[in-house]
């Protein structure tokens, strides 16, 4: 069994609804998509739902290799990035190959990836995360209520530019989740818009009314001092990590006690890298939380991590050319038994999307908003539907 080739299919997906955070309150409903197909000499293909840069160059290190040797191949690819660094869009390429290799490894065992990774159950606790900064109050309620009706008992609200609105919308989210739990879990996410001290003041005022589990990205991704300060000075825990790329990025945060939860995802150098981060966190007694993924496919990895808490579910409707074997039930992502990721690409629908790219609005990924860390630039009139009386 040898790896023989790869191809990347890129497309644009128009989601069923827009998503936003405080960096771009108006939101986007158009996302770039990529699918990596990793081919072998035995008619089995591994897939990943992402791609990166420099993949032709990285491919040299896995071409002709046995995909089952995925961890050894990770080291080879990582070593090749020694000078340029396993960072940014190059890192996404390594991640994509690693994910496709694990898909192959599981398919060769004829097992779902959660089983190949050794989980006892293909089941991961979910929390709802609207990426909801562009939703009206009613739309906000409807999203969290829909997930609460599927048993989800915790939610994470986007915040950052308007304390009064943030407080009101926390209440709306709590009310919506109340059908699933008398005391739903509440989290907030500021996407690094605040300085550490702004975060302390803002979160403290929220905490006069609400009990928050964690505040996500309340300060800069590298600022272990500031993140620790926030963690010490508010009741909520601090969660961070989504914008880091490999386990060595996490070392300063963990060594300095800067975070209470680590957000992990595919961008952390694939399944292999994600597991390294989770094990480093485990060594420091810190839990991890898997971030959202198209088709929830990273739930396979989350299921096998012993210190995994709950996984983010955004569910904006971005799987139009995919079929996938998992569902939300009783507040859990329940994974099926289809081999590998359990994700199939509908090639006809993919081609249709490529031939007729959808139209939409917004810029992704979100650029950093003016004023970040210093002053608040509120949404312009009409930019969001939830500002009242302005």
């Amino acid at each position, binding site marked *: 069994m040898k790896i023989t080739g790869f191809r990347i299919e890129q497309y644009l997906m128009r989601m069923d609804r827009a998503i936003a955070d405080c960096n771009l309150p108006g939101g986007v409903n158009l996302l770039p998509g990529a699918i990596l197909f990793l081919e072998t000499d035995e008619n089995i293909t591994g897939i990943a739902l992402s791609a990166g840069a420099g993949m032709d160059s990285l491919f040299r290190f896995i071409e002709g290799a046995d995909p089952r040797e995925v*961890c050894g191949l990770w080291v080879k690819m990582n070593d090749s990035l020694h000078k340029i660094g396993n960072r940014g869009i190059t890192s996404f390429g390594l991640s994509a190959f690693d994910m496709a290799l694990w898909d192959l490894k599981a398919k060769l065992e004829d097992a779902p990836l959660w089983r190949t990774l*050794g989980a*006892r159950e293909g089941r991961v606790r979910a929390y709802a995360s609207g990426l909801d900064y562009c939703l009206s109050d009613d739309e906000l309620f409807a999203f969290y209520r829909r997930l609460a009706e599927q048993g989800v008992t915790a939610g994470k609200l986007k915040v950052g530019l308007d304390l009064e609105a943030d407080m009101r919308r926390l209440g709306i989210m709590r009310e919506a989740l109340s059908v699933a739990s008398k005391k739903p879990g509440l989290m907030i996410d500021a996407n690094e818009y605040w300085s550490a001290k702004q975060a302390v003041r803002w979160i403290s005022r929220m905490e006069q009314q609400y009990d928050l589990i964690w505040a996500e990205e309340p300060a800069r991704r590298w600022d272990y001092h500031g993140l620790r300060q926030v963690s010490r000075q508010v009741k909520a825990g601090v969660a961070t990590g989504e914008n880091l790329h490999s386990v060595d990025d996490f070392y300063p945060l963990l060594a300095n006690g800067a975070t209470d939860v680590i957000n992990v995802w595919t961008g952390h150098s694939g399944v292999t890298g994600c597991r390294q981060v989770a094990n480093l966190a485990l*060594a*420091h007694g810190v839990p991890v939380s898997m971030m959202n993924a198209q088709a929830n496919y990273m739930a396979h990895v989350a299921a096998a991590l012993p210190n995994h808490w709950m996984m983010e579910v955004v569910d904006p409707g971005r799987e139009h050319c995919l079929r996938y074997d998992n569902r939300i039930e009783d507040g859990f992502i329940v994974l099926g038994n289809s081999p590998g990721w359990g994700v199939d690409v509908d090639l006809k629908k993919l081609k249709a999307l490529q031939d007729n790219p959808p139209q939409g609005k917004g810029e992704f990924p979100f650029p950093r908003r003016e004023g970040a860390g210093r002053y608040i630039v509120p949404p312009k009139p009409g930019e969001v539907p939830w500002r009242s009386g302005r």
Partner: protein
Amino acid sequence: MKLTGASTTLFRYPAPGRSSSRAGSLLELTTDEGMTGIAIGDADLRAPIAALFQDFLKGEDPRAAPGLWHRMQEAHPRAGRARAAIALIDVALWDLKARMNNEPLWKTLGGSRLAVNACASRADATPGARDAGAWFEDTKHRLGFRSGMLRSTGRRIDGHRLEQVRDALANGAGEPELGVDTGGTLAAAEVIRRVRTLEKRFDIAWIALGPPHASARGLRQVSDSVRAAACAGRGLCFPRDFHRHFQQRSIDLVQVDLRVNGITGALQLAEAAYGYELPVMLCAAPGNIHVHLAGAMPYVMNAEITEPAPPALYRTGVRIEDGRARPGKTPGTGITVDRAALARATVDRLSPRGKTARPRRKK
């Protein structure tokens, strides 16, 4: 597929070059589809294995080795007989999984078939042993070892023995790499005093401390006071025993001990260590199966070898050549048991101090 049974066979065998015998146990996990996973241990763990099987394994899917490990180790996070039993079970589960895949273990773990640097390791006062120097010289000549570790059994580090090791491993190609493992015999301050004296004569690559002296503070003190790398991990359980070490960055070279961490815990520890590129040494495991793990771990320095060739009771497929160890290509851990020899060596119990109970034929 479900796990249906766990059986343990105790045995004694004459150890090469020793007048006394060595003891061991063979664990076999069976399934409802007729496949068996095996692991070789060095203690009588029949009682904890039986209890763990009842509580955690009976009827479970054997492919969930990590999931089962996490549940069992939560109940037994610290060293002890139960923890050693969990570790042995974990090895047997991985052996089973690799056999189910018809793969050698290293492939199931996702590694490449890496040749890992081998470090010859011997206790300084092995009873009835030949002169330590002769053993090390033998490993150099036959197997190309360039690295040696002396394990202290008394409350001292024997400079004379260390010199024998160094001289035995020396060859034209350069100085051998030397390590000393003090086990739990010496506290940090004594280690520092002794090692600083020895470092006038020797270039010691690492100095290992063991429980109860392997504290984070002690190791930092050693690391800051001697040139050698402060080393620990033998007998330490991941993650519980490692929290302080990671927080204080007190270990310069971490020993990954399958005897208390199994394979699942060993892989986890190695991945955590990679978080700040902490080099890993794989502690010797029966049958040298630890060699299978090297290729799946991102930052392995070497693998300790205490028994270059296993006893006549079983074959391992692990080959040592030119100072490097390589796992074989047969399915699972590659251990094949000579059933007839095992039957002859089987005993009913291992006496408490591990002293000889003459092998009796199994009735």
